[in-house]
């Protein structure tokens, strides 16, 4: 961590029935610079806060306006129960950190930092997966371009592949893009290298 995580100006939504524990939690969140709204009803999907803290002991499906662990915001689970079903619910909603009940205020800042870190990591990973899936999807094009280079230039597969890769590098294109241009006839057949 290079920079001190700073939650100043953040809007936190606390989904929990009001009690003395949430009073202390709200106070600590404000101390960390957050503005806090507390409610015990489903969060609106069109006005998401910067971070969400949810009661995982009593939370129900539909409380959070997303599904399947694809939380669009960092999520912290407030958990007193040790019941595996409740822990599974928190995971399912996409929680990146847990604050145990009864509350120790020293658990709040670490949980926010951890949930934020996990959230960012997940976004980065899903973007990477998306990118890789796109490349896998276009793999047949690369194969087709290699075959065409082999046939046109009378070289082996290894040689044809290198030709395609060098060509893409020179043009600063992804190999898949280069292959698509060759197969589609938009680019002349490259000379073998």
């Amino acid at each position, binding site marked *: 961590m*290079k*920079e*001190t*995580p*700073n*939650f*100043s*100006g*953040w809007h936190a939504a606390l989904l929990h029935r009001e009690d003395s524990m949430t009073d*202390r939690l709200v*106070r*600590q969140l*404000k*101390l*960390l*610079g957050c503005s806090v709204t507390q409610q015990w009803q489903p969060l609106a999907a069109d006005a998401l806060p*910067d971070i969400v803290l949810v009661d995982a002991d009593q939370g129900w499906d539909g409380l959070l306006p997303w599904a399947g662990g694809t939380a669009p915001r960092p999520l912290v689970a407030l958990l007193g129960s040790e019941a595996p079903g409740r822990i599974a619910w928190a995971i399912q909603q996409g929680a990146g950190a847990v604050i145990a009940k009864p509350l*120790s*205020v*020293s658990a709040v*800042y670490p949980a926010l930092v951890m949930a*934020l870190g996990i959230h960012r990591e997940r976004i980065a990973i899903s973007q990477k997966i998306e990118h890789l899936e796109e490349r896998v999807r276009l793999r047949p094009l690369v194969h087709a371009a290699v075959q065409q280079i082999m046939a046109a230039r009378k070289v082996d597969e290894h040689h044809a592949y290198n030709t395609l890769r060098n060509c893409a590098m020179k043009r600063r294109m992804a190999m898949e893009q280069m292959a698509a241009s060759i197969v589609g006839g938009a680019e002349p057949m490259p000379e073998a290298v």
Partner: protein
Amino acid sequence: MRDAVKIGILYSTTGPYGSMGRDAWDGAELAIDELQDAYAGRIVPVFIDPKANIPDYLDGARSMLRDHGCRHIVGTITSLARKEVLPLVEKHDGLLWYMCPYEGFEANENVVYIGGCPNQHLLPVFDYLIPRYGNRPYLVGANYVWGWEMNRLARELIAAAGGEVLGERYLPFEETAVERIVADIELRRPSFILNNLIGPSSYAFLAAIKALGARDPAFRPDNCPVVSCDLTECELPDIGIGVATGQLSAAAYFDSIPTAENLDFKRRVAARFGASRRISSVFACAYTSLKLCAEAIIAAGTDDPVAVRRLLSAKPARSILGPILIDPETHHAALPFHLGRINDDNVFEIVTSQAAIAADPYLTGRNRRSVPQLRVVS
């Protein structure tokens, strides 16, 4: 309130920070004597010396809370000891009075923080040093959370100031082999040195820098000062006269502060400990913690931590550090800032001061005149 109220005092008088513990112990004793004179028999101290041994801190705190019925403990020097003792204090719903400068990022409801966090020491130190000496410091520290966090923040402040950290080195507690660090400093030629070393490591380092300055004027204190946020009068005798002359330290209190309250305080200390005794911020803050704690208990008519805390946050209490107000949200005292320069007589001469700064333990920019350029994570 008829019964006497017991207050625990938990300081190590031995180990790498023993001189600080002894000074804190003395400050607490002076406060207890004065409380005895003012409120005979109503405040009873329970002194325990854990001898720098972490399990003994736990045993001591447990004995105070459980066997003696203390609800208030004044004590611990290091963050390590504070964090160890805290769960016990929370469990017994007590209040820990912590009076050393520390690295921040804590606002526990069961603690009153009298020692200051980085926006009360490190940030004003850098505000002062960077325009005068440059933005290319070298960072040294003890290999534990104080050194790590202070240097991490320093790195961030330097990056925000467009500068460069020329080196960052750590030493284990009580390690005095500083030659390699000093050789690296000589090679890299920083603008100034931030010293977060503790005890004997720090003394050895200051002596080695003194020798370096004698060989090469670029490393004399007026060209490349060594600055600390926890070096006080109580350690200067261990360092020796003349060794650290010209070097800097930040504190909420120095012996040389020329206020009428402090002159009066010095007379009382001299009467009890002799005229040559120099008062450190450790001594002054331990004294202040006990006085604040006991006087709040007496005024509230109960040692209930909630009642005591409410009183301390309601209006400023008089103290030798000036009027002290505890923030009801952070549980930290607003503290004055002083930067002192050590002179040939091992006295800190005040270089610059600021009126009480409200604590901002999580560096959110709250209550601050100048918000540091920490980037918002979003």
